């Protein structure tokens, strides 16, 4: 699909309330099957948690969903449209934004410059538009700068707007990554361990912002997280993975009691 064939941003499609979906997706690395025939559905306007012990295939599934890895078989659907062959940047422009487990900010740029980079479909990144549509480029820049300022205040990073991103603490970088993702007005946001290495106060702050975005903006989230209690508290649905397969996909209360998942974690320890 070309850049110009973007989806209807209202999500008017045959997705039936499912914003992101995989159908029988598999991925192998040599002889190792990292994701094995996985079918999952991420519902629109919901927070979906993805849990599982190390090596369960969570990160590989994340990479398949976001287009960083190509599937060996199966399909990935975004808003009901097949995006299996679409590159990661094309998926991003169609509303699927992800973060990384280890934050990846552009350390030589300031916080606000990092935020501005999050704005998708920026006409200023096209030579022709820059030359012939100067007003449009300038207006877009102005609108996005205001949006960046608004988000920095919302995430309580405003005072750090002119600081180099490389000087931020781990928690502040997580917030910056969240903010930069929000600059793209995502339809679905894939967060890879958003609370990892973050102090408890900032963790609460990040969780609160995620919940608010879901409730006020109807944003959809898929979150991989090792803090099981946090994920159980905020998720509408939790997916449990082990050895490349889906063990369970249900409400948190049900998943917490799932015998197979309990066995997968520390040979039967508490999830």
């Amino acid at each position, binding site marked *: 699909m070309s*850049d110009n064939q973007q989806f209807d941003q209202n999500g008017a499609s045959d997705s039936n309330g499912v914003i992101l979906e995989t159908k029988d997706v598999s991925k192998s690395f040599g002889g190792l099957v990292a994701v094995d025939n996985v079918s999952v559905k991420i519902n629109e306007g919901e927070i979906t948690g993805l849990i599982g012990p190390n090596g369960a295939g969570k990160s590989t599934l994340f990479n398949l969903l*976001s287009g*960083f890895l190509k599937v060996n078989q199966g399909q990935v659907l975004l808003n009901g449209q097949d995006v299996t062959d679409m*590159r*990661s*940047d*094309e998926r*991003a*422009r169609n509303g699927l*934004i*992800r*973060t*990384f487990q280890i934050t*990846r*900010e*552009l*350390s*030589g*740029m300031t916080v606000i*410059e990092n935020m*501005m*980079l*999050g704005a*998708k*479909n*920026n006409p*200023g*990144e*096209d*030579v022709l538009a*820059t030359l012939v549509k100067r007003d449009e*480029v300038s207006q877009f*820049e102005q609108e996005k700068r205001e949006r960046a300022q608004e988000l920095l205040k919302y995430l309580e990073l405003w005072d750090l707007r002119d600081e180099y991103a490389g000087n931020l603490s781990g928690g502040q970088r997580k917030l910056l990554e969240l903010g*930069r993702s929000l600059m*793209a007005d995502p339809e679905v946001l894939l967060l890879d361990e958003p609370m990892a290495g973050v102090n408890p106060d900032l963790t609460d702050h990040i969780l609160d912002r995620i919940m608010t975005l879901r409730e006020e903006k109807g944003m959809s989230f898929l979150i991989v997280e090792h803090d099981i209690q946090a994920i159980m508290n905020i998720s509408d649905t939790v997916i449990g993975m082990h050895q490349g397969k889906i063990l369970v996909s249900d409400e948190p209360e049900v998943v917490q009691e799932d015998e197979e998942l309990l066995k997968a974690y520390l040979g039967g320890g508490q999830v």
Partner: protein
Amino acid sequence: MALSLSTFLTFLWNGLVEGSLIALAGLGLTLLFGLLNFINIAYGEYMAWGAYFTLLSKVIGLPFVAAILVGVIGGGVVAIAADRIVFQNFSNRSPVVLLVVSIGVSFILRNLIRLLVPSQYTTALYGVELLHVPNIAGITILGNQVVVLMLSVLTLSGVFLLLNRTRIGIAMRAASDDTDLARIRGIDTDRLVIYVTALGGTVAGIAGIMLGLESQVTPSLGFTFLIPVFAAVILGGIGDPVGAVVAGLAIGIAQKVSLVIIPSEYTPAIALLVLIIGLLTRPDGVFGEATR
């Protein structure tokens, strides 16, 4: 033999001009490396093609300024052609494979000049003196050197303005720093590759034209200039434009000033000596950017 101050200043002036050329060529090469992530040996031929486009345009009667423009655009076109026809087909291969492929492309592009350019022009002079500058305090200053220095400063300033003040330039820097991060933000990295290749090729074209102004135009004009350019790129911290420029200036000045004490045939070794001393004292590059 005692060295007069004016002779020393002449060497210093020559070094500044040489350094500006190395800085400019280094900037183009480091920009290409930043996004494409391999050392492109064919870069020297982008320079040579830029010089030949200008030479042949002048031969057919274009005014020299117009001929320079043709050369600048020509460098960019050759770079894009090499990228689209060859390098993109190996984009998923390792940097070592791409390095070897670039040696092949370099060889082909250099010999295409010998094949296509009429033999009387394969080694030629532009034969122009763009400015007449009187000697100042006994320092020998050639008009073309002043033009080379001015064009270098103008081009360097333009590229840095582009990289720092335009959305395209900032996207280039972002993709150069972290291509994956740029992708997940929806930045069209394929389109950026074309832009960066065009920019790198254009800068190479300008450097090649100016190198021709300084000496003479030959098919290996860029190839033989690569040692100090690579040294500048590595010493500057690979992928760091500011580092490449500063290191380029330092190497150019060191090369020319060294002529005070050593014969000119050893000049290329000076670039490598500066590189070794630089890396021993600043292992992460001039400004501390990690050398990849």
